[in-house]
């Protein structure tokens, strides 16, 4: 039984839920079998949010540690956490280069994760894509991430139009138009 495993991570409020739903539906539009699960606990209140997606033959949507083929992170601290726990050798990581500092960092008790910290992962056999765009609305960071996924064909078998159809399912017309513009601006 072999599945392609996607682990998404971010901080509550960053739009992981929508990103995950778009990806699951895009995979479905591509004609592949997909299952997933969001984990959010106290997410809305500044905690870590993650989502698991599996393509292919799998019964449980929960990904085993170090068994993710693709990691999508909406924040730098969370990208590090995902790599430390879920990356397999050869894993691809796309992260949005922003920082929502955890309490210990803000209190000066710990140091912020830097881009260099993440670069180290390359030597561990992980491929890293760093993403950042100047956006009018920060809530579209998830779509910028998705664009990188599509441009590099990081999810096997899923085409640009599959993502667009999925976005169209989930967004009202004006939101969809704005997001499509960002998604297709390459």
């Amino acid at each position, binding site marked *: 039984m072999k599945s392609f495993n996607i682990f998404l991570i971010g901080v509550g409020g960053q739009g992981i839920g929508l990103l995950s739903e778009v990806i699951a539906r895009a995979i479905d539009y591509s004609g592949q079998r997909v299952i997933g699960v969001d984990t959010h*606990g106290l997410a809305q209140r*500044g905690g870590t949010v993650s989502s698991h997606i599996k393509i292919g033959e799998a019964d449980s949507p929960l990904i085993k540690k170090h068994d993710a083929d693709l990691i999508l992170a909406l924040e730098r601290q969370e990208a590090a956490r995902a790599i430390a726990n879920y990356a397999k050798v050869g894993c691809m990581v796309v992260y949005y280069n922003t920082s929502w500092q955890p309490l210990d960092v803000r209190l000066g008790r710990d140091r912020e994760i830097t881009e260099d910290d993440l670069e180290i992962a390359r030597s561990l056999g992980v491929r890293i894509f760093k993403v950042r765009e100047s956006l009018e609305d920060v809530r579209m960071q998830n779509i910028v991430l998705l664009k990188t996924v599509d441009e590099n064909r990081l999810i096997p078998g899923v085409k640009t139009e599959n993502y667009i159809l999925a976005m169209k399912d989930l967004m009202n017309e004006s939101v969809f138009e704005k997001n499509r513009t960002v998604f297709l601006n390459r």
Partner: protein
Amino acid sequence: MKTLGGILVQKGPFEEIVIGNTAIVRAMIEGGVKVVTSYPGSPTPEIAEAINSIPKEVRPFYFEFSVNEKVALEVAFGAALNGNTSCVFFKSVGMNVVADSFVQLSMMRIPGGMIIVVGDDPGANSSQNEQDNRHYMRMSYTPVFEPCNAQEIYDMFLEALRISRTFESAIVIRLTTHTAHFKQKVRFGEYIPNSTSMSIFDPKKRGPYIPLGEAVFMMKRRALENLQKYSEISENHVKLIAKGNQRGIITAGLPFATILDVLGERVDYVDILKLGMIHPLPRKAVVQFLKSHKEVKIVEELDDFLEEKIKAIAYDEGLETKIIGKLSIDEWIGEYLPDKVEEVLFDTWPDLVEKPEVPKMSIKTVKRVPQLCPGCGHRAAFYVISKVLSERDISVADIGCHTLGYLPPYEVGQVLLCMGHSNGTASGLSLFNSERKVIALIGDSTFFHAGLPGIINAVYNDHKYVLIVMENYTTAMTGHQDHAGSKIKIKSVLEAFGIKNIYEVDTYNYERFEQVLREAIAAQGFSVIIARHPCMLKFTRERRVKGFAKVRQVRVTEKCNLAMSCISIFGCPSFQRIEGNRVLVQKELCIGDGSCLAVCPKGALAYEEGDQR
């Protein structure tokens, strides 16, 4: 755009990618459920979200958020007594709240049929414990289905409905956090609208309904006789994967799916019996499985519920099968995530599971704890409370967003049991205690849910402490559900109890809050402060919908002397520490509420120039 409401009421049959919680709502619609009730709590609030996505005029059933889980269960019970099929849903610890009424249900004939959906939370993802509610089912003689994915949730709900109507008895569907949120393409059936409603309550025909005296034993007998029949039904809901191995696993729910994934191709070396109904057990299927295997491991999350019963069956039948239950305390704790399942299987049969090679991803990480949102009125309150209370004073937390006050930098709220405990616990802490001030906290939704008896008790028995009602006009923690406070004013309730010292304050008004808090403490009796500020997460979301994408934000001016009060005392997540220990406002987080402006001793926080607010 596909709207959830539109998807759910289509005629069908159809397939759609949904989570388990959403699949339940379609099952309610197809199954002809007439009355649905709930009190919000994770992992079940998405059921209510899906219901609320259906416009009222096309929604085929009545839905309410009741004031607490117990009332919700009673409303559902009453409706079904009258012949109107009902469903009540709530979170794990909601089971404790409903218990008093729930344990009576199996003795009652409920002609409409009634489904109880409980969302257990192994791993305590969003609860104060990971209690195993299966124990309640045994105690109350209630049958329970345990689905392992979204499709099964839908299928089992409909099956439970059929059984519930046939037996005129309540049936439980037990979800766990990650089955409730399991996302997959579910195959739905047809929806045939049926607007008949009933009023067939008839104690002479279906009663007795008053369990007193001799009636208790007769009613209990009925419950136990039903339980025997459910045991037969339970036999129809097993899934057997048998390849003639000497080793077998008995399991249920999501751990079943996880076992399949963890074993991969090695699934060929062990047989599996997956239970669909976990109470009562399918005795024949279990005996047959035990008889045909030398060793059987019970893989179950949380307690040894199945293990005890299966071992008892084996003893009764004189079987010599080696039954392997929980091998260590670790097997009782935490969710059965894939790594945990792998460990459990490895500890049982080391040769069955390949010891996983863990890649060395030695990369720095920083822990992240949840925090109050930018602009949260509770933060403003904690800022004042932590200033007024001294080190030795005592603050009692309750359930809600404000529970997070226990974390640094505030550390307000030092003990927590459950919804509404704070008044009783604070009362006890205030006894034989003249030196240390005692403060109790409670949220507005919790005030109505379970807070009232403790408050009345404080008045009646003259307890001396200060209660702070943290009113944010919503049930914020679980996703902004409405509550009784939108119709019934908290102040008028407190006045009706005869409480003399009632203060009202907006938490952003620091000076006044500090003043009334000191006054309330000095009053030496029982005082209540209603500390209000609307939930700012809800406010900013609504503002965005109205089209305010950009607001005037706060900036740090040159007056900053790096005292760091904005971070170390106030603690809004928008203030971040950058190189050289300077402070920066993270633009993605600041909502421009300005609650921080007064907290800088140097007055270094100001609004950005230019934009009008």
